[in-house]
């Protein structure tokens, strides 16, 4: 090993001895430098044309800006302020209408009508129809009253959330937003995406709305977002349900009282008839057991027996008629009571649905692809772009182009 190191040291010394300049080194160096100089001079003689570049850059900027800012917007209909295709976007008015339709479709009158029409029992529906109509009238009158009432200060705020996002990665962001919605315990109701546009309709718990909104805002620059949060007090709907419930409860109480009254009347009637029948029965029994030899008395007894038997059978028929009549009227009352209970149950469900509805937020997210020019335009207004472009090109020319020309001479 030491021998090899010694040899390496010898080679180092030897290597240094070999290092030498060639003969006529300066002449060769001058020749190489001459070539280097001539190469530079040749490149000066044929300088890269700069003015065409300057004009083409400026011209391209102006043409692109003109086309994107003036020509393309002019081609689109002036009334269509939204840049989304119709199938991906709803205007605010359309959203409000849609929500109202959905709420009214789930309203009390509609439910009762559906219950009465959908029921196979025609009898029940016939009985329910006038009640339904009366309830709708009452509801309508109360709605009108509630709309102007300021005494009730309760709030049942139903929140709607909407956000428009401009991004250059629509599909990736679309997937990420789905994950965020699910992460907040939300439910996705509608999805659509293509490379240019995306849309998500979802429902999330009201308690998560603030965090959800913050998380989305953290993902994007504020210039690329348009967020809207609207809330509507569902107090009128709540009042209608409450009043309808009161009305139904009162009706139920009345019907139950009516049924009790019917039972009591029936019982007293039956008792009276049975007492009368018993009297006649006793008289018949007494007459039949009476022994007499008088033909006059015997004919008298015979006539009385016929009279009492006739009375007895009349009372018996009356009792049967009373029982039948009672059964029918009691059944009718029972049916009405069942219908009332059913309506109260539905009202209770509606009340629960309304409270659940208040505790959720319905939201829509619209994604729109944005071009680089549009993105720049968000930061800098068009006139500034033009001015800055021109200044940039001139500064570029003065600092780089002119210096380059001088350096090359």
């Amino acid at each position, binding site marked *: 090993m030491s*021998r*090899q190191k010694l*040899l*390496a040291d*010898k*080679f*180092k*010394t*030897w*290597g240094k*001895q*070999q*290092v*030498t*300049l*060639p*003969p006529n*080194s300066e002449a*060769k*160096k001058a*020749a*190489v*430098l001459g*070539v*280097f*100089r001539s*190469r*530079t001079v040749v490149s000066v003689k044929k300088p890269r044309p700069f003015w065409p570049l300057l004009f083409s850059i400026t011209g391209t900027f102006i043409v692109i800006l003109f086309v994107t800012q003036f020509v393309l917007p002019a081609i689109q209909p002036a009334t269509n302020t939204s840049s989304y295709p119709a199938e991906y976007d709803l205007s605010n008015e359309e959203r409000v209408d849609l929500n109202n339709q959905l709420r009214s479709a789930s309203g009390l009158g509609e439910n009762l009508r559906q219950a009465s029409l959908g029921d196979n029992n025609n009898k029940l529906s016939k009985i329910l129809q006038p009640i339904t109509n009366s309830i709708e009238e009452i509801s309508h009158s109360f709605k009108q009253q509630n709309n102007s009432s300021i005494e009730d200060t309760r709030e049942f705020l139903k929140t709607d959330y909407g956000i428009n996002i401009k991004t250059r990665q629509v599909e990736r962001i679309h997937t990420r937003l789905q994950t965020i919605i699910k992460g907040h315990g939300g439910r996705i109701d509608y999805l659509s995406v293509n490379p240019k546009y995306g849309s998500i309709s979802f429902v999330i718990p009201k308690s998560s709305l603030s965090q959800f909104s913050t998380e989305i805002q953290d993902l994007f620059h504020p210039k690329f977002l348009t967020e809207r949060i609207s809330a509507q007090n569902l107090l009128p709907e709540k009042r209608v349900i409450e009043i309808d419930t009161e009305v139904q409860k009162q009706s139920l109480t009345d019907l139950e009282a009516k049924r009790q009254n019917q039972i009591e009347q029936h019982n007293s009637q039956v008792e009276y008839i049975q007492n009368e029948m018993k009297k006649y029965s006793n008289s018949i029994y007494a007459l039949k057991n009476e022994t007499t030899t008088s033909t006059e008395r015997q004919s008298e007894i015979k006539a009385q027996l016929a009279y009492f038997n006739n009375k007895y059978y009349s009372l018996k028929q009356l009792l049967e008629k009373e029982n039948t009549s009672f059964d029918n009227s009691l059944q009718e009352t029972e049916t009405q009571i069942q219908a009332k209970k059913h309506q109260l149950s539905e009202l209770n469900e509606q009340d629960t649905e309304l409270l659940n509805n208040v505790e959720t937020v319905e939201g829509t997210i619209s994604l729109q692809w944005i071009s680089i020019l549009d993105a720049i335009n968000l930061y800098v207004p068009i006139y500034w772009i033009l001015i800055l472009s021109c200044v940039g090109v001139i500064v570029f020319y003065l600092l780089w182009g002119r210096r380059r020309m001088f*350096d*090359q001479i």
Partner: protein
Amino acid sequence: MLLEEELGLVAQAKAGEQAAIGLLWDDITPKLYGYLVKTLKDRQLADDVLQDTWLKAINALESFRPKGVRFSAWLFVIARNECRQHWRKNGREVSIDEDNETQSAVHSPIELTNKITLDTVLAQLPIDDHEILCLRYISELSFNEIAHVLEISAISARVRTHRALKRANLILNK
């Protein structure tokens, strides 16, 4: 010359500084010429190849990208390619005029003896060993730079240098 200094000069040369080329010439040419003389064994031919190497380097200067390798290593790659090109055209003809000038540069008898001994040893070594020892001890290239010139890995360059020295040692001890 340090890597940074050398790269600074190259940057200046790219910007058109003639003086930078002059400084690079002064620093690299002695080693490059020594390497070419030892490789080609012909001073006249080494002169020509030296000039061709520099001219090609100047013409291709814009395409030079450092990537951790010195400009001198890049020049040695060009020089080696020039040598190979010459050998492809003319074959490996050995001239005997290589040492005339060098001997006059040697001062002491010990150095002269040492030189003659090592020249004799080098002449008996395989071409690859000869080349790697020239690159290592005349050109003073690092193993990374030798690897770059010979298009092998740095570890291979180290191992091959070690083996070349071992073989030289064996020849020396015969």
